[in-house]
């Protein structure tokens, strides 16, 4: 199951993209594509163990 802090957005206050991109509501920022794989629990990744943003937000 994807991270509860993950949203897909086309824009924030500063930038607009043609395609919706992974946005982390825990840090209020678009995230790197590699980090988006963690947000989505793809491959062997798990946001509950692998993401410091999630872990810090859940403390």
């Amino acid at each position, binding site marked *: 199951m994807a991270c509860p802090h993950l949203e*897909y957005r086309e824009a924030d206050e500063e*930038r607009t*993209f043609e*395609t*919706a*991109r*992974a946005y982390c509501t825990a840090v209020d*920022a*678009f*995230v*790197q*594509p*590699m*980090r*988006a*794989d*963690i947000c989505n629990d*793809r*491959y*062997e*990744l798990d946001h509950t*163990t*692998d*993401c*410091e943003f999630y*872990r810090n937000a859940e403390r």
Partner: protein
Amino acid sequence: MSYDDYLAGDPVVITAALTGGVHGKEASPHLPETPEEIADAAEACEAAGASVVHLHARRENGERSFSRERFQELTEAVRERTDLVVQHSTGGTGAPDDIRHEPLRTDPAPDMASLDMGPLNRYQHLTSENTRGLVESLAEEMRERGIKPEMEVFNGGHLNEVHELLDRRPDLIEEPIYTTLIFGGGTTAMPTPDTFRSLVNHLPEGTQFNTLGFGQHQLPFAALGIVFGGHVRVGLEDNRYFRRGKLATNAQLVERAATLAETLERPVATPDDAREILDI
């Protein structure tokens, strides 16, 4: 390789690492993500002096993809527009081993492919393991498909792994051995001239080496690579800036490396020169 190789004036192979798999357009609007954008950048880099292009594939939204199909679409776009030596990445933090083989399975096979020689840390809680088993299985498939490995040495321990692999499996990697020495933060090699000299001094006999500095280290380590008879990798995968505060394009970074090589009186390799130097 050494300063004597510099004095010999052999051509410098410039590899353009256009996009990578870590950051995307959230980091720089100049970073190409789609096959069309990457082919555009490859064409501009070839004109600027690149002879090898290092490729990662992405999904429609810029996120990572390791699938054969996405690499096929990408490599076709680049091959239609350039004569560059095509190098596919097999890197993939968090991706299962079987998926890491997918970029080797395009038709035609890539001319080269990266081979990460050991573990490296990512973020706060991740490690890209790159076990010996995975490294060997990737090298075996490269050998079967006639793909030249680019052995990526992120630190001194990885150079031990190069020697260990060559000793244990002398059948696996054809000469000339080709390594990329990687300098920066984290688990990459310390970005100092002393570290650079040490790694170069301990390369296997006859190795051709490529030099990669992350971020602000890209330019000075390109210079070191050129002066010590090696080759150079530049591009937005590794460094987003032309100078402090000014974002770069891939072609600008290649053009600067080419100018540096020519200023130091080493010619810039054409794609055919690169094929001859690397025996592709």
